[in-house]
């Protein structure tokens, strides 16, 4: 079970980044819908996604405890807020979870409190982004040559945007499926919104994938030029874990190609959006596996330098 405990970190980081990214994407969509179609449509759209984001954050927080030797004392970590990025990560994670929870309560019990929801949502987005930044700063350690680079925050933010964008698209498609089954009166508007979300998120995913691939190239270049410890990490990445690395990159490329094909097929053939649920869901699964594999490699190739 020892090695399983190490998986608590990838679970936590990936799920938190996915939650923060989803919150960001959802809130951008919310703002656009609020301006174009009004509060009623907006709240109809964000209700289920907010709930799923909250469950994801809660799962990530529970999962993170499996990494700790003494889970009961986890909150004491915030006592070093002033000096430790780990403490800040824990604190911002808690704040993010609280704000998403409050937003969820507002949506369910104060559905007309638009302003309070708006403020809380923006707060949650801010906390999510800060959490991801704090998370990345935790790994910027001088003793960990492979981590101590700009590539780490770039990789974390790329994962956030990629999983958040495609994750929200999948959730909205599930929403659309439910609305279609229920023959919702606002179905045309919702369909219009989701159509735009799909197009934009596909563009974002393509861009982020390019950045991620570039980031890998940049990371390999750095490892080549940063001494023997970095070389050891590079040997691990391209040696022992070569197959996994190839699978990681291949899945990333496959995912983005599949998403682009699906989006173009839908637009050109004017296929019903609900028919995209299964392919986009599979694409999301590919991206998720790819990102989890990337995070595994992130942890696996680090070599500590010094004492």
């Amino acid at each position: 079970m020892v090695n399983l405990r190490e998986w608590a970190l990838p679970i936590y980081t990936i799920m938190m980044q996915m939650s923060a990214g989803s919150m960001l994407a959802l809130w951008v969509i919310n703002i656009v819908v609020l301006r174009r179609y009004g509060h009623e449509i907006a709240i109809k759209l964000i209700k289920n996604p907010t709930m799923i984001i909250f469950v994801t954050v809660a799962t990530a927080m529970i999962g993170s405890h499996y990494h700790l030797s003494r889970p009961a004392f986890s909150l004491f970590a915030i006592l070093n807020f002033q000096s430790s990025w780990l403490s800040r990560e824990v604190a911002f994670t808690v704040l993010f979870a609280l704000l998403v929870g409050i937003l969820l309560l507002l949506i369910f019990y104060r559905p007309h409190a638009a302003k309070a929801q708006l403020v809380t949502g923006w707060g949650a987005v801010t906390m999510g982004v800060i959490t991801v930044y704090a998370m990345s700063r935790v790994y910027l350690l001088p003793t960990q040559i492979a981590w101590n680079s700009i590539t780490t925050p770039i990789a974390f933010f790329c994962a956030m945007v990629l999983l958040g964008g495609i994750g929200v698209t999948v959730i909205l498609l599930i929403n659309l499926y439910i609305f279609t089954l229920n023959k919702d009166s606002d179905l045309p508007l919702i369909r219009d919104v989701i159509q735009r979300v799909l197009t934009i998120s596909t563009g974002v995913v393509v861009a982020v994938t390019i950045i991620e691939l570039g980031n890998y190239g940049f990371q390999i270049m750095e490892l080549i030029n940063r001494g023997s410890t970095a070389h050891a990490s590079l040997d691990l990445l391209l040696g022992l874990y070569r197959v996994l690395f190839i699978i990681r990159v291949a899945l990333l490329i496959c995912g983005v190609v599949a998403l682009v094909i699906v989006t173009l097929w839908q637009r050109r053939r004017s296929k019903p959006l609900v028919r995209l649920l299964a392919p986009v869901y599979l694409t999301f699964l590919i991206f998720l596996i790819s990102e989890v594999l990337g995070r595994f490699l992130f942890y696996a190739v680090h070599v500590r330098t010094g004492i």
Partner: protein
Amino acid sequence: MPIIYFLYGLSFSGLGLAALLQYRRGSILPLHKQLPWLAAFGLAYAGVGWADMFLTSGLQTEVQGILRLLRMILQPLSGLLLLRFGWGMLTQMTPLPSWTRIIPGILTVPLAFIITYAATTFVTPSPIHIPIDIWSRYLLYLPGSIMAGIGFIRQSNEHKKRGFQDASYLMMGAGIAFLTEAFIVGLIVPAAPYGPVSYYNYDRVHFDSIPADTSANNDPFTIIDWLDYAHVLQATGQPIQFWRMLSAVALIFFVVRSLDVFDAIERRRIQRLQEERDLAHSNARHLAESWAEALMKINREIAELKELDAILFEIVCSARKLLNSDYVALGLLEEKQRLMLRCFATSETIIASPTVGSSVQVESELILKVLKAAKPYRTSGEEGTNRLADLCLCTDAIVSEAAFVPLMFNNVAVGVLWSVRTESDPYNADDLPGLERLANQAVIAIQHGLMAAQIQSLAVVGERARIAREMHDGLAQILGYMNLQAQTLEALLKQNKRENLFAEIKQMREAIQTAHADVRENILSLRTTLSTEAGVASAMLEYLDGFSLQTGIDIKLQNHLDGYLGLSPLAEVQLVCILQEALANVRKHAQATEVSITLVRQVGCAHLEISDNGIGFVEQADSQRFGLQTMRERAQQVGGKLSISSKVGQGTTVVCVLPEIDQVNPAHMVPMYMASASMPDPGY
């Protein structure tokens, strides 16, 4: 150990073959579609078991390498086949509840982590076949067995609902066996240095696997390792492979027995079909009997010359019952070629309006169309509401389906019989011939009514002729004789021959008395003949009383009837006339003081015997006595016969035998010239 693996492989190969054979036999059950996957899984997994058997029996290294490669291919393949079978059992047999749609969404993240985790274990130092074995079990056997188990349990519930109790138990057993298999085969895997494998394994050290990691016993999240090879061996005295083999045998037993359900259900299906066929035959026979019974009843009423309206009403009532209709009506053309409603019958659910009994003209477009085309017609659920609106005359019923047949008389449609249903239940092709038969009966009834009327008028004409003849033979002769006698009396009076005068007057008085008796007898006969409403027997009794009073002849009647003579109305009239003729002969010629009359019903005939104690007469072969000849003709006219026996000084006996109505030949009832009779007035 090789024996255990051999039996293990044998069990699954048996499962595969059983499933394959059952699939080839064919079935309509949804489970049938999943059988190829089960068969393929059984055969592939048998290959895994037998590969293990050879690997543990100490073969050469090269052969071991080939077998291990084969095993590495067969194991994930069999796992995939089991997963497909389980998916089919779970999702394609009975629709899943709607809430299960969210399960893929919930499983997305854990699945992604598990797949990634599985991928990372392939870079550990353990041999490649170990992670293949482990993840085949975790990712394929475990979910496949769980899905198959749940699928069988759901099928068990379905069969229980359908009343297949025995099949339900077997399915439940198969479901539990699959879930047990999921636990034993899917969760207990070879040893490897990563969790949870390091805790739940059967430690196959003979496969070069790495011993289980025991360094984490103090870990707060560790689960006690009670399922490893050593613990199971210590606790049960048998290795875990042995228990796995037993589990497989239990699984195969329940699944193969469950496949017997196919046969059981097929047998029940055939039995049900046979029962349905027998029921259909029975219903058809019953229906045919009902039709025959109804037609016979109508025929009988026609032969008995019942009132036409009563017969037509019987026809529409029979049609309504036999066709399970809500409304049946019959319309006849009248002189001005207007179709008038003659009678109708309704079900209890339809209430007739107060216009019943008044003259109602039929104006329905469909009915008039059938009358014009002179062809049967039935609706097929596509008629517009307006076209069906005015079919249920005198009611407010809303028509859904209707069938029409014309009443054909000498190839001319003279009316329509139509049947209506208010429910949407179209008449089928077999209904129209039945309705046509009833329409034919209606036409026959109308023909018979017409004939009866003509026979009655003919009888009146005949009776007038008889009275004229009687008057000519009796009263006219007497009056002529009286005229001559009056002239004789006048001459005698002028000659003043008093003695001769008195003698002539005496003869005249006797002649007048004879004429008076004849006239009174004729009056009595006419009254009796025409008053048949009270029944022929009572009419005869009444006549005999009058006859006895008038003539002073003692009449002894032996009436053995039970009230019903069984003769047609015409035959009854002829019987009374024969009796009157016979008694008139007795009065005129026999000089009898006593007459004995016997009336009895025997073997389909009515017997009338008239015997007197008069002087009798000598029978002659060429005797053409007018009264006797008339009696014979009357009997023959209604299909009967008459015999006369007499001896001088010993009286005379007349025996008349007339057939009952069921025995009579229609040729005797319906004169040929009646066949071309024209259509009667509807008001008849």
